[in-house]
């Protein structure tokens, strides 16, 4: 488990997350969970699906999972382990045939296109793949325009510069999306408090905002963030707290 608290840092295992952040409680305040395998060394799909299964066990919301997925069989394993969607990043650009196959097999709604974008010193934006290591030289808009539109259900736009800073989203990323594209868009990278979530959601080009900032997960942080977002007339799905369900065990 990695936290993006000011820099990507190792914080603990899945047990650690449950124990210290009471994840099964937090999970009741999200609309969707995104789980990424960010291993830089060789990935192990068995190990990752086991983590995913443990997470999914106490999370009754849609789950998108990914990180290094290159094979239909790996995608199928994720989808049988609690995931509803598969997140693709590098494969979007270097293996479009796989993207199409994935959508044909499991449906367009199953494919989340994750795009890491970095603003250079010259203020120009570039897409990076392979865990942010590989610079794509073409214009961001051109690259996004080349995506297999009918094979992708939604876009997950992450700002490498903002990610982990807690300084707020980079809304300029949205200007980079060609007008003709009509993907539902999740904005990520930089949220440090609920005001940032609101800033993102109030932009009409944004359909959802993501956060990996631990600040949002301490105690009732996420619950309070949901409440304050709702005060801004943002329409969020509602459900009662678990305690209102009464005796849960049959």
């Amino acid at each position, binding site marked *: 488990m990695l936290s993006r608290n000011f820099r990507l840092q190792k914080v603990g295992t899945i047990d650690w997350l449950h124990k210290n952040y009471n994840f099964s409680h937090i999970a009741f305040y999200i609309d969707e969970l995104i789980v990424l395998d960010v291993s830089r060394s060789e990935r192990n799909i068995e190990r990752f699906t086991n983590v995913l299964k443990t997470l999914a066990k106490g999370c009754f919301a849609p789950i998108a999972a990914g990180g290094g997925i290159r094979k239909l069989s790996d995608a199928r394993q994720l989808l049988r*382990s609690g995931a509803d969607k598969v997140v693709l990043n590098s494969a979007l650009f270097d293996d479009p045939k796989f993207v199409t196959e994935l959508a044909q097999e499991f*449906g367009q709604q199953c494919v989340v296109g994750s795009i890491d974008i970095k603003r250079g010193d010259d203020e120009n934006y570039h897409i990076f793949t392979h865990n942010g290591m590989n610079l794509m030289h073409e214009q961001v808009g051109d690259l996004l325009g080349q995506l297999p539109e009918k094979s992708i259900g939604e876009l997950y736009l992450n700002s490498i510069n903002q990610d982990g800073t807690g300084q707020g989203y980079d809304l300029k990323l949205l200007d980079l999306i060609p007008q003709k594209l009509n993907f539902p868009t999740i904005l990520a990278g930089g949220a440090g408090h609920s005001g940032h979530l609101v800033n993102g959601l109030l932009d009409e080009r944004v359909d959802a905002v993501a956060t990996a900032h631990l600040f949002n997960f301490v105690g009732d942080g996420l619950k309070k963030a949901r409440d304050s977002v709702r005060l801004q007339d943002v329409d969020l799905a509602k459900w009662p707290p678990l305690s209102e369900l009464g005796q849960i065990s049959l």
Partner: protein
Amino acid sequence: MSMNKNVTIVDYGSGNLWSVLSALEFLGARPVISSKPADVLKAETILLPGVGCFRLAMESLIQKNLDDAIKEVVMIKQRKILGICLGFQMLADSSSEDGMTAGLGLIPAPVEVFGAQELKGRKLPHIGFNQVKLPNSSALFDGFTGAEDFYFVHSYRLLSQTLPGKRATCNYGVDFLAAYENKNVYGVQFHPEKSQTNGLRLLKNFLSV
């Protein structure tokens, strides 16, 4: 309240079984996953999940002889069944997805894709939480009031003009059948296992009927 702890989740090779299993275990039920007709025939409670294509899913059910087992345990033994999403659609008479295909025929309705005119510019599939308008005095929605949010992922839905039983509706450009109950046959177009506490409550209601 009588409780049915033993639930048989029908596995025909598609569907997010792990999430359904987790939700039922969370509620204290004892779910088992099976693709054997013999298990289905002796099931107390049946859950038919589903994500994917109607035709392929029905072919898989038939190939595993699960179709007759489900019909027998529901129609003759009168066990209760809950169909989720594609599983709900498979309880219907037929679907036009990928060519006309017969369903299990437990709900007298056809399944059709949303029409372009009905959608009024909305995109398919219909994905995300959406508000479901609930029927009065329904077993499935016991404890809910008025309208509640549930998570949907689908492009097809049951056409419901003349159905007996109780109905909940949702709107996606046009009103459509979001949930249904008639005697021992229950179905939901949304995913209760992905609908947070609203979904858990609904599953608990189903188990408690």
